[in-house]
């Protein structure tokens, strides 16, 4: 049991996050529980507004102070509840043990600092190295992400989009974090550059055995590099399992099914796609029962009123009434 405890580096328990405005409350994350072992990569999949980024910002404790509220839940990282830490303690974790790659490489670098200085900033704050060691580490980390160290005196505008994203990854990895949150790291890039970045992330994972939470809407990327997958819809995790559970199992949540049906398949000829009808629900006014029921092609009476519980089969969890009636999972 002790061994098990040691491996589980991150455990999110029943976490909810709300944003409040003058008129209404936006329920961005609802009762999310999730755990991550050392060295594992989990893909967090969902559409715009599913709460993926909010969840990542909560882990980093970077939510806006005035408008956000965490009504319940806990986030255990190496056994410590991050939500209970004072800000001074959190600053030691942020950037050193947990770091984040933001979505847009064009806007997440400081345009008036050289890239070398921006990588050095994290090292100065956390590592306590001498100036000389610092420089050496900057060179090392630039080489690691495939940038010539001679370019550390250049400014962000002198880099292309793919190179900027490499710089951002270099900053995130400077202190060799235990956990890396990657928020759509390749969405803004071209496919050939995306392939380069994904390849690099795979290599880095092998070299420094960081755990990664990869936020994306691309099921192709998940198939390529993740060990586990969590599908989010309207702030909830509606399906969770290993990649094998999600990609190859017979049972899938109707929403997951819809996501797969929406992607034109390169290998199968089909004239029409099978999209999900309708739109994401309004987060200030979420539907009763299952949040997906107004769009679900297999909606039943129970779905409209009763929140479906989790049905678990081994490593595979589905939050849907269908799997209760057709084949009760033990």
């Amino acid at each position, binding site marked *: 049991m002790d061994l098990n405890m040691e491996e589980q580096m991150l455990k999110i328990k029943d976490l909810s996050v709300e944003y409040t405005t003058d008129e209404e409350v936006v329920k961005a994350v609802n009762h999310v529980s999730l755990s991550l072992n050392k060295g594992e990569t989990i893909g967090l999949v969902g559409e715009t507004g599913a709460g993926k980024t909010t969840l990542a910002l909560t882990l980093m404790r970077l939510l806006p102070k005035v408008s956000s509220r965490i009504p319940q839940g806990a986030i255990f990282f190496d056994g410590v509840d991050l939500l209970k830490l004072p800000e001074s303690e959190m600053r030691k974790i942020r950037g050193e043990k947990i770091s984040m790659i933001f979505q847009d490489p064009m806007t997440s670098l400081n345009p008036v600092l050289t890239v070398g200085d921006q990588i050095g900033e994290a090292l100065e704050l956390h590592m306590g190295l001498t100036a000389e060691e610092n420089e050496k580490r900057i060179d090392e980390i630039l080489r690691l992400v495939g940038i010539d160290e001679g370019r550390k005196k250049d400014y962000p505008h002198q880099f292309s989009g793919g190179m900027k994203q490499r710089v951002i990854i270099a900053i995130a990895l400077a202190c060799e974090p235990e956990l890396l949150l990657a928020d759509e790291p390749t969405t803004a890039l071209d*496919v050939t550059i995306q*392939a380069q970045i994904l390849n690099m992330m795979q290599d880095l994972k092998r070299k420094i055995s960081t755990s990664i939470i990869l936020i994306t*809407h691309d099921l192709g990327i998940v198939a390529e590099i993740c060990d586990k997958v969590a599908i989010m819809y309207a702030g909830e995790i509606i399906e969770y399992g290993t990649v094998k559970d999600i990609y190859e199992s017979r049972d899938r949540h109707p929403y997951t099914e819809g996501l797969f049906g929406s992607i034109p398949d390169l290998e199968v000829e089909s004239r029409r796609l099978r999209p999900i009808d309708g739109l994401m629900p309004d987060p200030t006014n979420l539907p009763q029962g299952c949040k997906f029921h107004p769009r679900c092609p297999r909606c039943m009476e129970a779905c409209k009123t009763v929140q479906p519980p989790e049905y678990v089969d081994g490593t595979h969890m589905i939050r849907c009434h269908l799997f209760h009636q057709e084949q009760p999972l033990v």
Partner: protein
Amino acid sequence: MPDKKILLETKDLKKYFHTPIGDLHAVDSVSIKIPKGETLGVVGESGCGKSTLGHSILRLSEPNSGQVLFDGRDILKCNKHEMRKLRTEMQIIFQDPYASLNPRLTVSETIAQPMLVNKVCRKDELGNRVSELMDTVGLASRLYNAYPHELDGGRRQRIGIARALALNPRFIVCDEPVSALDVSIQAQILNLLMDLQEERSLTYMFITHNLSVVKHISNEIMVMYLGQCIEMTDSRELFKNPLHPYTQALLDSIPVPRLQSRDKKRKIIKGEIVSPIDPVPGCRFAPRCPKAIPKCTERDIPLRNVSENHQVACVLFEK
């Protein structure tokens, strides 16, 4: 395809932008033919000139040389008056549904705009016609007086489509119409575009960087790299038998949502697109190409037929 009627054709179309450090070759000698009722997919990475090609064909940015034939007529020779008339038959759907709608106009005003400008509809019929168009693209009638900021990306893109359809065009340039949308919404819009094509026998030029989308919607596909067409063939053939090393690398870079592809060794091309300003002669992909030989950079490589319906610009396929 000798038996098919060609609706749009370009011959040696060129568009250069003058910059202080030289000419930027955005579109360089592109010749295409699109048969009536079919879709030509144009794929390439950012900066390869695919949007500029679309804009040049509609004369939204004036080409430097070459010909654009619409129904056999060279539109580059048309004067302002004739062009205005022709524009009713050639429309465009823009990439960004957030930036391409006037925030001060309601949904119905936006859709009515082209009909008012071109005086094709009587005032008292306008309302009906707008409702009809909204119905066609699947916009609920309660949104008649809504403003764009009240709507999500998918609905906004539907407005863009309704606006493009308002004048009953025969040809539509679709410039990345789904790339700003979520996958489930993307599929809805793609289905809509395909239904409309069938009903109204529309001809599309479909510009995108998303290869699975382009395969799904196109009859023929053209691959662009730095302003040039490097490979052109029908959709099935391109995916089954890609010849140009760039096309092969492009197809290999797509992450496939399937676990079997996980352990496949990918060909990853190194480096990035070089500057399109005053490019040196020879193949523009050569600096990144894994199969490059000295011959690649000696002279320009023209597009050649390798089979009846498959053209490629690469020295490896020259006899």
